C-alpha cells in the first residue's frame, strides 16, 4: 500500500499506524504522530488502520526559537 511518510512516498506492508512506527524503528523514540493532518495520540496508534495515500507525519524534538 502506498502512503506518504514525512513527505516521502513509501510502499508499506503494515496495516496500522503503530505497526508503521515499529517498522520505521521509531517505537522507542520520543515522537508524536499525525495522520492526514490530525493528531493521533500514542495509545490510539494501534487502532488506526492505514489506507492508500494516507499522509503520515512522525515528528520528534528539534531546535526552536
Amino acid at each position, binding site marked *: 500500500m502506498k502512503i506518504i511518510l514525512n513527505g516521502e512516498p513509501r510502499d508499506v506492508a503494515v496495516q496500522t499506524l503503530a505497526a508503521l512506527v515499529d517498522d520505521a524503528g521509531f517505537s522507542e*523514540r*520520543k515522537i508524536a504522530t*499525525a495522520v492526514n493532518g490530525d493528531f493521533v495520540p500514542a495509545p490510539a496508534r494501534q487502532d488506526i488502520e492505514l489506507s492508500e495515500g494516507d499522509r503520515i507525519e512522525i515528528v520528534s524534538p528539534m531546535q*526552536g*526559537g
Partner: protein
Amino acid sequence: MKTFYGVSLPNPLMLGTAQYPSPAILAEAFRASNASVATVSLRREKGAGHDFWRLIQDLGVRVLPNTAGCHTVKEAVTTAQMAREVFETNWIKLEVIGHTDTLQPDPFALVEAAQILAEDGFEVFPYTTDDLVVAERLVEAGCQVLMPWGAPIGSGLGLSNVYALRTLRAHFPDIPLVIDAGLGLPSQAAAAMEMGYDGILLNTAVAKAGDPPAMARAFALAIEAGALAHGADPMEPRDMAAPSTPVVGKAWLA
C-alpha cells in the same frame, strides 16, 4: 512577582535553542545566562531528535514548545497537540504566521487557535503583535500570558513601537508580558524591562552572536538590570540641567 500559569520563573529570560554553532555552545549559553525556559519545536524525525532531547533535558530548565512555521489554525492546533504528548507540558508558544516576509502573527488565526487550545487545557503563550485589541481578544480566549513582538523575528531591530508596548503594559497590569522576537542588543531588553515587562524571549541575537554564551549572559544581566530599575522608581528626565555637586559652600577663587 507575576507567575506564568502559576509557575514563577527564577529568571525572566526565555532562550531559544536554534541556530547555535554547536550543541555544546547551546548548553554553555544556557549555563552562562541561567535562562529559565528553553523553546523547542517538533520536526520530522530523522534520527537527531533523541540526542537533542537528551541535551535539553540536561539543561534542567522548563521547556516551551512552539508551533513555529504554522500558517493555519489547524496546523498550529495539531502541532500543539503533538508537542503536548512529546514534551509532556501544557505550555505552548503559539505562533501562527501571517506573513512570510515579516513572520508576523496572523491576529485572526492566532485568536481562533488560542481559543481552541485554551479550551483543550493548554497554557498558551501567544506570539502576538503590539495591538491592544488583539491582546484583549487573546485574554478573552483564555491566554494568561502575552508575548508581543519587539520587531520581526531575527531582525535584531529592537523595540519598533515603544508607544504601543507602553500602552499594552498600562492596560494589562496583572498579565505577564514577554517581549518575543526582534531584539538584537541587551540594552533593548533592559529598556523593555524598565517599561515594566516581565520577561524576554530571545534566540537569534544570542545564537548568531560571535560569542553566544557571552551574549546570553549579557542579555540576562541587562534583563536583571531593567527589572531592578523598574522597581527602583527612576528619576523623571527633565530638559534643564541640575548640578549634582552641591553649589552651597563653593570656595570663591576668582
